[in-house]
């Protein structure tokens, strides 16, 4: 009798397990950005496609906190990382050393992701030890100076090509209560990008050079760029509260005609076109004189890509599946960006073409083959000390209250 009961029990359990397996979906946690159209649209699109391709997988989204990766680090410390997580260049080194980032070489090959990645992106996707740690979706991205042409016309001004011209424009704009250039200097990267667009006029590698070790902060160009930025700030080119302005404040100023220029990445093209239509264009960065303006017309700030993207926790009970899903999602992000966000600058060749691209994007795509050099956004830098302190330094310069010497000295200290 006992035996029989045991067998019965075992049988019931087996059936139970089997049916549970059949019905129960595999849940994967995914830590990613999900806050605005640029992050929600691709995610929602990817989830929709995932349901078709992997009907047994269910994603549980953990929205990413804007905290410089503090959450991710804390989760790593506790050994509690989600199955799939979005990561930036700064943290890759740390987490791959601690073996909390799965090596994705096989999966990249098996899923065909590796074949679809653009050659330019491949060099960034593959880390210096030859391994792939994350599936990227963002492609080359560029820092652009956006200009509201209507405002320049209204006040009879030419688009500036040198800093002196820019300062002359600022006098007119300031007299009329318009900010010449709005920045969101509260975010270190935006301040740093502004500095980089100046520094690249002197040293084409810009802030990336120091990250690579090919240039030194004591090089004269960095000091000159700092002096230029202080000069612009003191001439009132930027808004008063530039170091505490957030993205939404700065963007609203530009979109509502309260600011004539704006600095942001190319992903802003979509929003700018929607609000200002044909009035808005991007321009080649002004320079310290005409000659260098012409000479550096095709030297861009930004670009460079990074090894960021969706990474996988190797300790996940479904690590292999999570890796496949991560590759799938990254690819779908690219599709969504191309088709739904009019942004063809993605990591993966989706085979899709969007012929409805806004004029500014068409111009940028046409410009790309002419580009002579690119640098990086701060999140594409691998030296976390440098990427952090250049943001702070650029902010000091933007405030107009620090001398270039003071700021460069501070940077020398931080980097020593």
């Amino acid at each position: 009798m006992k035996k029989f009961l045991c067998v019965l029990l075992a049988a019931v359990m087996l059936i139970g397990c089997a049916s549970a397996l059949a019905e129960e979906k595999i849940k994967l946690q995914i830590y990613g950005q999900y806050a605005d159209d640029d992050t929600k649209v691709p995610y929602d699109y990817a989830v929709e496609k995932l349901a078709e391709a992997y009907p047994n997988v269910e994603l549980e989204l953990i929205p990413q906190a804007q905290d410089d990766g503090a959450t991710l680090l804390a989760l790593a410390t506790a050994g509690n990382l989600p199955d799939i997580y979005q990561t930036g260049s700064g943290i890759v080194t740390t987490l791959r050393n601690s073996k909390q980032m799965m090596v994705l070489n096989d999966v990249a090959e098996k899923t065909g992701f590796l074949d679809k990645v653009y050659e330019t992106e491949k060099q960034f996707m593959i880390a210096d030890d030859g391994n792939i740690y994350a599936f990227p979706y963002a492609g080359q991205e560029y820092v652009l100076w956006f200009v509201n042409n209507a405002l320049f016309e209204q006040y009879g001004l030419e688009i500036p090509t040198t800093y002196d011209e820019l300062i002359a424009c600022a006098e007119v704009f300031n007299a009329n209560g318009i900010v010449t250039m709005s920045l969101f200097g509260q975010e270190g990267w935006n301040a740093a990008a502004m500095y980089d667009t100046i520094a690249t006029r002197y040293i084409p590698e810009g802030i990336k050079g120091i990250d690579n070790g090919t240039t030194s902060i004591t090089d004269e160009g960095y000091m000159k760029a700092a002096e230029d930025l202080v000069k612009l700030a003191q001439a009132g080119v930027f808004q008063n509260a530039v170091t505490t302005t957030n993205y939404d404040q700065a963007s609203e100023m530009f979109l509502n005609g309260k600011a004539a220029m704006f600095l942001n990445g190319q992903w802003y093209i979509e929003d700018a076109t929607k609000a200002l239509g044909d009035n808005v264009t991007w321009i080649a960065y002004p320079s310290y004189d005409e000659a260098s303006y012409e000479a550096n017309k095709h030297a861009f700030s930004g670009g460079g890509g990074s090894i960021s993207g969706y990474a996988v926790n190797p300790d996940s009970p479904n690590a292999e599946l999570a890796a496949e899903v991560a590759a799938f999602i990254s690819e779908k992000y690219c599709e969504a960006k191309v088709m739904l966000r009019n942004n063809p600058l993605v990591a993966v060749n989706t085979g899709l073409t969007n012929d409805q691209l806004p004029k500014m994007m068409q111009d940028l795509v046409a410009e790309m083959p002419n580009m002579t050099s690119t640098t990086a956004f701060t999140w594409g830098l691998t030296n976390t000390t440098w990427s952090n302190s250049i943001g702070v330094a650029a902010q000091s310069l933007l405030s107009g209250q620090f001398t270039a010497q003071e700021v460069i000295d501070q940077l020398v200290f931080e980097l020593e």
Partner: protein
Amino acid sequence: MKKYLSNKKAIVVFVLPAVILFLTFIFIPILQVFYYSFFKWDGVNQATFIGLDNYIRLIGKDPTFKIANANGFKFGLVITVYQLVLATIFAIAVSDKRIRFRKFFRTAYFIPVVLSVTVVCQLWGNVFNADNGLLNTLMKTLGIEWSQNWLNDRNTAIYTVAFVNAWQWMGYQFALIVAGIKSIGEDFYEAAEIDGATALKAHWFITLPLLKDTFNFCLLISVTGGIKAFAEIDIMTGGGPGNATNTLTYIMYNHAFGRQNFGYGLTSASVLVMECLVIILVLNWLFKDRETPLFARKKGVDLV
């Protein structure tokens, strides 16, 4: 009686829960903070012992360290003065039976405490915005030529941020002092009334001396609140412009999470803990020799 108050079993039962909780989640982590301040550590991987290097660099060389200490002092000073003065005035006012709508005032003054720091910083950030903020706009409308770059001036931004903190947390000090006054008991006031002392005198000679412990505590909270200030700075100025509004906590956070240099960040935290300890000891010593037990009623009345 003495034996009754030295009941060993009872002492253990009373003390143990708090001590275990404290050791597990505060004390051991603090020891870890000190421990890692001697290492180069990224927060996740193996740490490398580097002796006093972090301390030498932070205290001896880092220009931000000096700024952070000065800011801690300024921040502490602003919130101490603002909170203690206003909280005392308001607490005495709402404890006075002659004031109407006391309940309303009591709730109103406490409300900022209930709001989240994010909301409060958002609001004040908008008020102090140098471009289209309420304060500068108001002054312009009134024809006052005194527009300031409230949050972006390297010399004065720290005071603006300190004000926001002082404004928000004044309610706590207020609530504490109100509770303190309640525990003195209403009969004091009545005694004072009969003696013909004016209200002000009565408060000065009776209420305030009796609240010494409360004040000691409030002072401690304010002063150390200045040294460990973080949230308002992080949200409103991000430590800027440049490093102008850095504090020790901000250095800690920025180095640990912004640069993944935990060893250095925790060195800043260690210095912070030590500074706070010194302040506790100094304040305790200052308040000790003139100890006035709360229940020494006779002494209080004699003063009148």
